[in-house]
Every structure is written in C-alpha cells, then in structure tokens.
C-alpha cells in the first residue's frame, strides 16, 4: 500500500505541528507514508473565490505529486473534498481520475480504509467536536443533522476510543463556523459573528478543547478565542489522536 501524505499549504506554513501529529499517528499504525516534497496547495483558495482558472497550475502540480499513490491522506476534509469534487476542471486523464478517487481525509482513512478505531491514545479533557462542513456535508464523513438516516461519524468513532476524552454535546451540532476561505475576509462581519456563536455553543456545553478535521475552521475559531481571551484550547484531531497524556 503506497500512501502519499498531503499537508495543506496553511498547515505546512502555519501549523506544522498538525502535520507532524499526522505523520506520527500514521507511523504508529505502521502505515508507510511518503511525503512528496514538490506539493503546495489543492487549489481551493482561488477556485472558491471564483478563480478556478487560476487554480489549474496548483491542481496539475497536485496531480503530478500524487499520481503514484494508492491512497492520498490529508489532515483536511476540505482539501480532500476539493480534489474530489472540483478537479473536473482538469482533463480527466487516468492520473487525474486516480488522484480524485484515492484522496482521503485522515479520520476517514483510519476508520474506513484501515478499519481501526482504537489508536491507544489518551487525552483527559472535555472535547467539543466541530464538524467541518466540507468533510461532513461534502465527503459525508458523518451523518448530517438535516438528513434523515442513521447516526455515524468517523471523527467521533476515533475520539470515543481515546482514553479520558469526554465528548460534549452541542446545541447546534453541525452549524458552520463561518470560516469559508476568502468569505472570512469578504464577509467579515457575518464570518466573525458565526465564529463567536460557534464558540459560545462550545463554552455553554462545557467544552475545554475544540477539535476538528480541519485546521482552517480551527484557525478562525482560535483567532477569535485568542483575541477574546476565552478559556478554550484548540487542537486538530490528529493532535488528540497522537496524545499520550
């Protein structure tokens, strides 16, 4: 099994600890990973802003870096979703189709490909899960509150097995946090309000640590928590899964 690791651009530069935790978690599971060093970004920032054409170079670079692998694993539901959903702007060569088929968000990969739930981690804290939208409603990494059907969630599956983790129930279990890429800046007022409301829901639910599959949402929430000096810790799910506290 050849597994390529994709570390999204903003994690690479701003949150390397999330990438490191991802590597360590996968190594603990005896997954042999390769990190192609020519990788940059999936192209989403341009595409979601309406400049899909400007993202073609980034998309092609992604395909070139990952075409060899049986699986592409990334600690981001949003980036994985972008590759799957929006790489239809490239010519659908066998390489492009393969890359789109084989890209997985980290929790999805562990639960549904490796079929593992207990990673032997321990993390004694009251944890609130932020269900990032692109992973949830795009990749269907869990059941959505709007849709009628049985409950499931790959991130919850993994966190439930972490010793000491107490998963806290939120009032609005899968409302968007308001990050939304360039939306965070172009619709600043609404974006900030959504983030503040999301954080309040976690605080009201007794959460000590907010976690998610996506650092992009977390960067937005962390920005607000830090500015407003609120008693919350923000960690990517890979960091919790990699903990031995």
């Amino acid at each position, binding site marked *: 099994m050849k597994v390529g690791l994709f570390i999204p651009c903003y994690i690479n530069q701003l949150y*390397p600890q999330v990438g490191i935790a991802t590597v360590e978690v996968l190594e603990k599971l005896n997954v042999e990973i390769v990190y192609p060093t020519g990788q940059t970004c999936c192209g989403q920032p341009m595409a979601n802003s309406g400049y899909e054409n400007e993202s073609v170079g980034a998309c092609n670079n992604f395909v070139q870096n990952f075409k060899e692998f049986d699986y592409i694993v990334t600690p981001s539901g949003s980036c994985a979703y972008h590759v799957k959903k929006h790489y239809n702007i490239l010519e659908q060569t066998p390489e492009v189709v393969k890359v789109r088929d084989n890209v997985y968000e980290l929790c999805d990969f562990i639960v549904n490909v490796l079929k593992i739930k207990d990673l032997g981690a321990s993390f004694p804290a009251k944890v609130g899960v932020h269900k990032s939208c692109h992973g949830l409603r795009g990749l269907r990494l869990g059941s959505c509150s709007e849709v009628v059907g049985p409950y499931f969630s790959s991130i919850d599956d993994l966190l439930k097995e972490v010793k000491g983790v107490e998963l806290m129930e939120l009032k609005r279990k899968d409302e968007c946090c308001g990050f939304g890429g360039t939306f965070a800046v172009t619709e600043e007022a609404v974006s900030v309000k959504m983030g503040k409301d999301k954080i309040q829901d976690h605080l009201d639910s007794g959460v000590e640590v907010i976690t998610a599959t996506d650092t992009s949402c977390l960067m937005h929430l962390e920005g607000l928590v830090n500015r407003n000096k609120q008693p919350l810790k923000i960690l990517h799910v890979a960091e919790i899964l990699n903990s031995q506290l």
Partner: protein
Amino acid sequence: MSHSKLASIFNKDEKKVDWHDKALWFVRHKRDLSVHQVKGWESLRDLGHGIKAHMLSNLDSYLQEFEKNAQANGVEVHWAANGEEHNQIVHKILKENNAKKIVKSKSMLTEECHLNPYLEADGMEVIDTDLGERIVQLAKEPPSHIVLPAIHKNKHEVDELFQEHLGTEPCDGDPQYLTHEARKHLREKFITADAAITGVNFAIAETGGFVVCTNEGNADMGAHLAPVHIACMGVEKIIPKQEHLGVFLRLLARSATGQPITTYSSHFRKPKDGRKMHIVIVDNGRSEQLSRPDFRASLHCIRCGACMNTCPIYRRSGGHSYDATIPGPIGSILSPGKDLTKHSSLPFASTLCGSCSNVCPVKIDIHSQLYKWRQIITKETPQPFVKKASMKMMGTMFSKPSQFERVGKLARWSLRTLPKSVINAKPNTWGKERDLPKGPKQSFDEWYAEKRKQE
C-alpha cells in the same frame, strides 16, 4: 450595495442579529423534528426532485396540457413573457371588471413583477392579506423571507406600525390583540374587494386545476368573496398529475415550518357560476434559466424557505441584505440569472457549507450552483483589481513549489516578528476581530527534511 456591506450594517445591532438567528433556527429545528418522524423522507425528496426534473424536461407539453384543461374548466388562461406583460394583463382584467379594490394573498411572483406599484399608479388599492405581507406593506418594505415575510420585525415594531396605520391602542406588543385587530381590518377589505389575486403553489397539467397553500385562509377568503379571481404563476409551478400533489404537499409544509401540512391547501378548478377565474402564466427569465444546464435545477424550487431558515449567513444578515425579491441561498442562485452585475455579490454570501442543499425538499444542489455562479461572475462582471491580481499571484505561487517555500518563509517571519499593531492594521480585515497564528520557525517541509536526514 453589496451583500457584505448590507450584512455588516445589519450586524451593528448584535442583539437583533441574535434574535433573528434564534427565531429562524427555531423554525429550522421544528422542520428537523417534523421530517425526522417521516419514514422515507429522503425517498420523498428524491421523488420530488425527479418529478420536477421530468416536468422541466417536458415543460412545453405540460403547459399546453394545463392550458387546454383549464380552458375546458371555464378558466381564462393568459401568457406573459415578462413582468411587464404580466402587470399589463392583470391590469387589463381588472379594468374590464371595473375593479378598484383588490385583495391579494401572498404571491412572490407578483412581488417579482412589482405588480402593486403598477396597479397603484392607476389609482387601484391593492391589499396584501397575508398578515406578514400586510405588515411589510404597511411598513413600505419588501418581504425579507418568502414564507415569513415580516420575520425581521419584532412584535413591538408591529405594535407601533399598527398604531400608526390601523389606529390600534398601544399594547406592549400583545400578539393576540394585534392579530385580532389585523383580522378586523382585513375582514373589511375582503368584504368590499372587487377582485382577488392569488399565487399558485402547484398547477396540475392533468386536471387544469391548481392549489394554493396558506395558513391563514386568506387566499380562500379573497377568492370566494370577490367576483373575479386572478391566479398568477411562474411556468415552473406545473406538476404533471394530481397524484403528484401528495409528494409535494408532504414536502412543502414540513420543510417550511415543520407543520405536517399547511392549514389550508385550497384546490381551485373552475369559476363559480357567474364568476370569473383567470390564470396568468409567467416566464420572466425562467426559460432562460432552464437553458443553463448548470442552473436549471434551481427551477425545482417550491418556495418553502427551508434554505433560508438553515442558512447561517441568512440568519445573521437578514433577508434585506440580499436586495433581491427572493433572498437567501435559493435567491442567490436565481437572481444572478436575472441581473448578473446587480446580484454579483450574492453567490459569495455563503461559506459553501452545503446545509441548504441538505434541507432542500426537492434536492436542488444549491451550494454547487453558488460555486458555479462565482466562476461566471469573476469572468463576466468587473472585479476589483486587487482581488484579480492577488488570485493570479496565488495561482502562480502554488504552481511553483520553490516560490511557495520562499513566500511561506517570509509570511512566517512576519507573523513571528512584527508587532500585533502592525499585523492587524488595515488592510488586514482578518485582524479586526481575530488574531493570526504566531509564525512557527520551522515549516512542516523543513521538519520533514530534517527528519529524513536523521533517519
């Protein structure tokens, strides 16, 4: 003004935003409780989607079938290519019947065509009889929601409005008193009306009949009392068969308010003896939307408003921030088809969270269509130079790994070294209310290279 500007004005009053958000979330929550009790809800959505898709693919023949059957029932059928023609037709019918006083039950189509000012210009009195519609009409405002037109107003605002226009006593926003007074006021209008205008929720090709759904019974009251009934419908309101009604009536009210069915589902087929019934079928840009493969499914819409209630942006920016007849997610995919430049900010008033597509009873892929409109808007409407240039620069940087590394290094250094006052100063909009992460010394790339060396 763009959506973001209007939204930021709305957000100046945070308490009002909280109240607006909670009021609509309450409706979304009621919808959840209701649909989660329906076994086969998702299949019902599939059916609704399928019937609408089939109807749109055969729209011409179903419209003709509907016309033929409606005419056989004694209904006069009119065709309007656009809003102007629609208004002219309605006006002509009213003139022919010497109608001066008109009662209207809720119709988003007549809003879209701006019928009221057109008729008022000729001295006609048009009274919107849905309570919420009447409230916004008195306030001289457009509806802010398609099902809950006055949801942006609280009871105290309604109290003041009624004191001013209906001469009510101050009542500290007592809803019972206010609705009672509204009822008295509207009764008089119903009794003296010369004509009634209604919308149409579903028009059945097979029978030539149509259905209007209300909770207040105002459509019936108007149509049964007045000598002339004019029903206005967009071409997409057609459904092929009577038996399909069961699917849509089950979907509509649950999605809209969480009710199993609206209080009144009124079936109209033919005029009473000595009375007249007209149907005006309106295109007004719909066939153009139908011609766009990426956006034709937007015409599936049955106007339940569920996408508005669920939309975290709509709830926190208010319907008026969309500056369009139909606000919210569905409006943001319909409006650009009518005037791309005017509505160019709407498809960007979304995080693409996808909740709208999940609640939509007829499974319109709303968030995917928002994404597609974005691609068109940046090509076909003027864009700020800074946005265009920065996207080009990012595109180039991300296609060249060495450039990405250099820019990343500089960004990390800046975030680590510069004082917060500099980092968060204008034009950094992010920094107005949010911190940025502290730039780490080592990127993941650098960590990985080091690790490889050690191995």
